[in-house]
């Protein structure tokens, strides 16, 4: 900045008065100029400073912007990576899902196969199981027994011959027909279809060989003791030895139906025991009543029952072979049941129809089901 010389020669004498004023103005002006010069300089400084500041801010902004962009990029990369990982995992899941489906299917099939196989086995096992319900049978005294000299200790010996009657379930639309002669039955079986006339219509019936399920026959040997009595429900109140004594005493009392006791067995764990009487007959009577009053530490009722042993003997399985009986199948339900049966009989009696003398006939109409029982066929006797 040029220095403004404030010393200037005063040229004009005539203007002293005016010059003085001018000089004063000039002084003032100079002062003002200085002021403004300073101001301007300062302003320039400030401007310079501001320029620097702005440049700094520019840099800072750029840096911040760069950082921000970097973060944005990171975010994008992160997202991309995530998407990639996610899709990889989900693909695997899908694949596993597919496997699972296949395996579940296979498992189901295997399980079904196993169950089916088990059912088959059970069905087969059933073939080996016999459930024989014995119908009520009357027993009466027949005669003195020819069995050898019995002593007192013989049990009541029962031999029960049980047999299963070979049976065929006769269903609706079927008939069973027994011929007197085996050869007639064989002949009929050779015919596929027989036309039986019934009123004014013709019925086609089909003769069929009968297949039967195996049946069993066996003996149950049942021996009931006449001297021993089973005791149960004995309360566990007093010690074992004393219980035995008390039982013996109680069972010896004739007033209660008891008798002389030969021996006592008792099992504390099960509360059961066995009384052996000296003489037969006592046990029988008591067993029938079912209970007996015993004095332990108080009077209690114990349960009594018979003592018996059993054995299976002469077990045999056989299969019924019906030589003279034939099954007639697919008989249409026409008219009265009895009439139809009669017509069947008439037809199969005639030799012209390859039939012969009939011993027995049974027809079941639609909706019916009958259990037909067979019995053993004795061999044919010579014709008289």
């Amino acid at each position, binding site marked *: 900045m040029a220095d403004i010389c404030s010393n200037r020669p005063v040229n004009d004498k005539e203007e002293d008065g005016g010059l003085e004023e001018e000089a004063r103005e000039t002084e003032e002006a100079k002062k003002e100029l200085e002021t403004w010069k300073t101001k301007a300089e300062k302003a320039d400084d400030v401007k310079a400073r*501001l320029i620097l500041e702005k440049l700094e801010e520019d840099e800072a902004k750029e840096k911040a*912007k760069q950082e921000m962009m970097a973060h944005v990029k990171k975010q994008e990369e992160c997202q991309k990576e995530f998407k990639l990982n996610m899709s990889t995992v989900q693909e695997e899941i899908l694949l596993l899902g597919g496997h699972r489906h296949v395996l579940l299917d296979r498992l189901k099939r295997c399980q079904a196969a196993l169950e089916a196989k088990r059912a088959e086995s059970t069905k087969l096992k059933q073939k080996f199981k016999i459930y024989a319900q014995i119908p009520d049978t009357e027993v009466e005294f027949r005669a003195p027994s020819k069995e050898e000299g019995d002593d007192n200790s013989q049990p009541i010996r029962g031999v029960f011959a049980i047999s299963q009657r070979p049976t065929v379930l006769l269903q609706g639309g079927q008939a069973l027909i027994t011929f007197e002669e085996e050869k007639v039955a064989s002949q009929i079986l050779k015919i596929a279809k027989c036309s039986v006339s019934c009123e004014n219509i013709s019925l086609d019936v089909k003769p069929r060989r009968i297949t039967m399920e195996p049946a069993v026959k066996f003996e149950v040997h049942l021996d009931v003791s006449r001297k021993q009595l089973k005791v149960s429900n004995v309360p566990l109140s007093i010690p074992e030895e004393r219980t035995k004594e008390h039982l013996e005493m109680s069972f010896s009392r004739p007033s209660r139906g008891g008798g002389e006791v030969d021996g006592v067995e008792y099992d504390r764990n099960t509360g059961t025991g066995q009384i052996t009487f000296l003489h037969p007959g006592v046990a029988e009577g008591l067993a029938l009543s079912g209970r007996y009053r015993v004095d332990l530490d108080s009077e209690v009722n114990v349960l009594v029952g018979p003592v018996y042993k059993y054995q299976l003997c002469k077990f045999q399985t056989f299969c019924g072979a019906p030589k003279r009986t034939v099954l007639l199948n697919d008989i249409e339900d026409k008219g009265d049941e009895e009439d139809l049966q009669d017509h069947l009989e008439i037809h199969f009696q005639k030799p012209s129809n390859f039939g012969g003398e009939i011993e027995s006939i049974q027809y079941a109409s639609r909706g019916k089901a009958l259990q037909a029982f067979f019995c053993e066929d004795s061999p044919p006797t010579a014709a008289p």
Partner: protein
Amino acid sequence: MSSDEDFSLVMDDQKPSKDSLQQIKASITNYKKRYEQLIQEQQELVASRDDQRNMTQNCKQRSDKLIQDLKEHQRSYGEQIETEKSRVISMKQEESGLMDEILRIEEALKEEEAKKEHLQQQADVFTAVPERPVVFRGSTGSKADTFEMKPRVVYPMEGGTALIRFDEKVVADNILDIQKHRVALGSDCRITVEARPVQLMLPRLVEIDSEVSPQHILISNLPRMDTDMLLSKLEIHFSKKRNGGGEVDKCELLPDSEHVVLTFVEKDIARGLTEQEHHEVELQKKQHRVRVTPFLNGTITNLETKMAVCPRTVLLTGIPDVMEQEVLQDMLEIHFQKSGNGGGEIEEFLYNPLGQHTSALFEGVATAPEE
């Protein structure tokens, strides 16, 4: 102190003071102008600087947020991936479990197949069971009638008892009702006897498991000959090792059949023999072709019994030994035949005196005849 403005101020020091004032004033004006310009520029710069500053702030704020967000996202993504990965793990576990299960079931299936095969083999024996000719004679009924029983009970009688079988059930019932009977034996002798029902234990339900016995064989196709001879010959033949046999425990004829059941002591003989269906055995002085098949043996798995009362039979007890047996029996019979005494027609009477041992035979009564 420098100015980058072209506006440089050079003052001419040599200028006369006359011009100086004007010049000064001009300078002042210049400086003023410049000052104002500078102020203006300053303001612009401030504005610009502040703008940038703001933008920087914004960027920084956004960066911060982005950092936050990124953290959050990373966490969230991490979680999600973890979730899916654990799904994968659990699915893999499930898969492994399923495969194990399948293997187990396939094993069980093989076992079951083997069991079934074994059972089937045993069941095939049913096709080889002996045949019996049977015939239908008109008998029908329900499944409950499938089994029939023929009872035969040997009942040892106590001393001083008698058994009476009446013709009619009502008579027996009456005698039992009266219970105590005074029987006159001659003019001056009276005895009192007690009438009681007879109850016998009968089987009610028999459950049997049958299986092919490793110890038995069933022999059929046998010729008609003396039973004892037949059984001996068979026992001898099948006890010889060269015939495939072994030590025989029992040899018996099955009731009302022409088949023989042979029991071996050891359990490994029967199987070998049954592999061959026909065997040549010397019977009746020549070689006879017999049929050897497996035998189904039964064991009782459950037996239920019941006590059955005889309808027409009565037991008399307390008969004292006052007379000769036959005489006393006659007197008793006469007494119980009279309707006046509550009795009726007697079919069978058996007296066992005190001190003696007699057994009575009880048998079944045929219900509906077959024909």
